[in-house]
């Protein structure tokens, strides 16, 4: 097991190198160090000397990939690419172009993101599973049919509609929760409510439909028929057999997204002014602070790969027939 995880982790390294090269090329073609300097020095009265100084301080005055003037290993290490990318591998994110410590920022902004994503995930799973079960239970009746149609309709509505509508209705019209913002500790509850609700409603269509399919598949299996023949009540069958067996594909599907919960949601966070990693990234894109964007891309890739490994492990835990090799 451990050796498997180690091996998978080793596979991750070339992938992360690839990610790094792609992002580096993309962002440095887009934004030369000169651009960054101008962006950060402000709008009025900026001199050339100030730009040179800015690049100097942040190490952007080095050659991009290969340093001819340096000796030995420094030919590679004394370059922008090395200085900015390789350190990411030891999770040293360095400082943003505006001078902030990115690692510290990430450690601070992670929590608001989690405060949104974890409740969303839990509440979402619970309600989608119950809806799915209800539809499966009433299969073929008007509840099921209208439920499925409703799901398709809700799937077809843009997520932006839910956000704008939710803010308008619950925040502005009903005065139930603050429209946007964030606070720490227990005070966060009232801020978290609306984003979670919006996220929940936005995902209802697709997820309920999918879970319903899983449960129905399960219900048509032989053991359920046997149970039914034994005279077990439909409700018991549903809870005992269908739910427990149906949960396996659902939970293994969830595992892959677990790590990415840290990253938060770009849109929801910026609309509800949640100071999480999602809005951090959006801000960085808008401000063209690419040191941050690169770090976030790297973090995202790492978490994605962790998610893949976790999924594999969870498969073996659930189904002993799958071997890790």
């Amino acid at each position, binding site marked *: 097991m451990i050796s498997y995880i180690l091996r998978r982790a080793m596979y991750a390294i*070339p*992938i992360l190198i*690839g*990610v790094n090269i*792609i*992002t580096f090329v*993309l*962002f440095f*073609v*887009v*934004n030369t160090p000169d651009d960054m300097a101008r962006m950060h020095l402000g709008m009025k009265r900026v001199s050339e000397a100030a730009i040179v100084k800015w690049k100097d301080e942040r190490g952007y005055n080095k050659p991009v990939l290969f340093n001819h003037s340096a000796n030995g290993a420094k030919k590679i290490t004394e370059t922008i690419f090395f200085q900015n990318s390789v350190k990411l591998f030891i999770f040293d994110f360095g400082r943003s172009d505006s001078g902030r410590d990115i690692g510290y920022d990430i450690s601070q902004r992670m929590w608001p993101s989690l405060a949104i994503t974890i409740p969303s995930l839990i509440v979402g799973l619970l309600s989608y599973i119950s809806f799915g079960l209800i539809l499966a239970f009433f*299969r073929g009746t008007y509840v099921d049919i209208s439920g*499925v149609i409703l799901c*398709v*309709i809700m*799937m*077809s*509505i*843009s*997520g*932006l*509609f839910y956000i*704008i509508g939710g803010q*308008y209705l619950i925040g502005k019209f009903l005065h139930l929760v603050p429209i946007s913002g964030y606070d720490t500790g227990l005070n966060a509850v009232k801020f978290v409510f609306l984003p979670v609700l919006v996220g929940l409603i936005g995902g209802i269509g697709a997820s309920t*439909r999918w879970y*319903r*399919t899983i449960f*129905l*598949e399960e*219900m*048509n299996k032989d053991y359920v028929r046997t149970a039914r023949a034994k005279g077990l009540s439909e409700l018991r069958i549903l809870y005992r057999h269908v739910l427990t067996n149906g949960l396996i594909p659902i939970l293994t599907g969830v595992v892959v997204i677990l790590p990415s919960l840290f*990253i938060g949601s*770009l*849109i929801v966070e*910026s609309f509800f002014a949640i100071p999480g990693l999602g809005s951090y*990234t*959006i801000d960085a*894109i*808008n401000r*063209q602070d690419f040191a941050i*964007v690169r770090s*976030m*891309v790297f973090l*995202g*890739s790492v978490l*994605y*790969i962790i998610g*893949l490994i976790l999924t594999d492990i969870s498969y073996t835990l659930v189904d002993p027939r799958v071997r890790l090799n």
Partner: protein
Amino acid sequence: MPVIFITDFLIFLLLFGSIAFFLYARKQEHLTAPWKEIKKQPLAMSSAVILSFFIIFGLLDSAHFHPRIETDEKSENVYSNEILSVLDLLLKDLRLKTEKTYSAPLASYSFSKELIELEDGKKIRDYPRLLYGGANLDNPKTDSTSDIIKRISLGFLYGLLISSVIILLIIFSLSKVRNEKFIITLKKCLSKNLETNWMSIFITMSILFIVIAVIYHLSQNYHVFGTDKVGQDVLYQALKSIRTGLVIGTLTTLVMLPFAIAMGLMAGYFRGWVDDVIQYLYTTLNSIPGVLLIAASILLLQVYISNHANDFNSIEQRADLRLLFLCIILGITSWTGLCRLLRAETLKLREIDYVQAAKAFGVSNYKVMLQHLLPNVMHIVMISIVLDFSGLVLAEAVLSYINIGVDPSMYSWGNMINSARLEMAREPIVWWSLTAAFIFMFILVLAANLFSDAVRDAFDPRLREF
């Protein structure tokens, strides 16, 4: 003087490609059988009708040209720099009838008060009359409701008339094809005794024709969906956005298709290091958060455009390039799913006897893939095209919201929502831009979802819902 944008070219390529595929598929038993299944489903057929209406609008909007300038000297044709499409010609009224600023749907007065100078030189602050909305009325306050009702009923009648004529024509030609009497075909249609569910097609078509006729009649004298901040007709914008939605939904898949198919087949067929490389490639791409990749690429394109500003002498061209680029980038972020599916399917297929036999006979790898494997994974490709469509249309709106979507000068539902989101705070609220965009998007995506469900069920019984 015609102008062909890159996306226009690709759209028509796609159109001819689809026709060619259709002709090819007609002879393939395993591809036609599921279609027969689909043709019987009422929802699927209604959706197909709606989709085809959207497609017609999209195609009309994809034929671009420079209009000629009317000049006094007759010797030489002079063309304007403006680029229009056939749809613009048809919607000339909507396009040119712009008000000064906001006006509500079907309104005759402006949305906000203005300083009006009366004839006697006195000034009052009131809602001014619109230039075009309700311009035929002398006294809109009393007459407009009856005028609107008159137009709606007139439109209803016209729509009913047109649709019944078309329906009768269709039944007539059907009866000719089937060598039956007209009445018999008619009865069969009504009792759903034909292989195609004509009844639902007719109903949907009539509804659409009636809606179009009503809107047409109203739009002669009103702004059906109101006007936006600079007085442009919202209905026109929503109609122009159809092309953008369709392009994103279809071209994205088209652009990535060759890669996804080639890579998926190769990975599954050759295995070994080819498989490793391809897997590495798509895991790497997959692990980069999609939005960030899109943001970077769009910025990259902007740099390119501003460095080569002189190569683009019209906004439309710049916008078109950006649209294409967006499709490519969306394709890059989304091809991996299909590639993985194809790889898994190929892994299974390559062990099947006839593929092994073909290999044993020394058929080249290239031929095996093209002749034996590709046709057998075509259904997966088709399913993923239709399934991706609605997601991409919705994605466009979200991307535009964070300013990395289509060009701001391009008509798209995302841009409409984006610029309208501040209007929600207005009091009284300006809801029509947002509503129009959401309604159009909703209808398209709903139709696409229903249709794709049917396609998936028909082609892949394993995934069928119970």
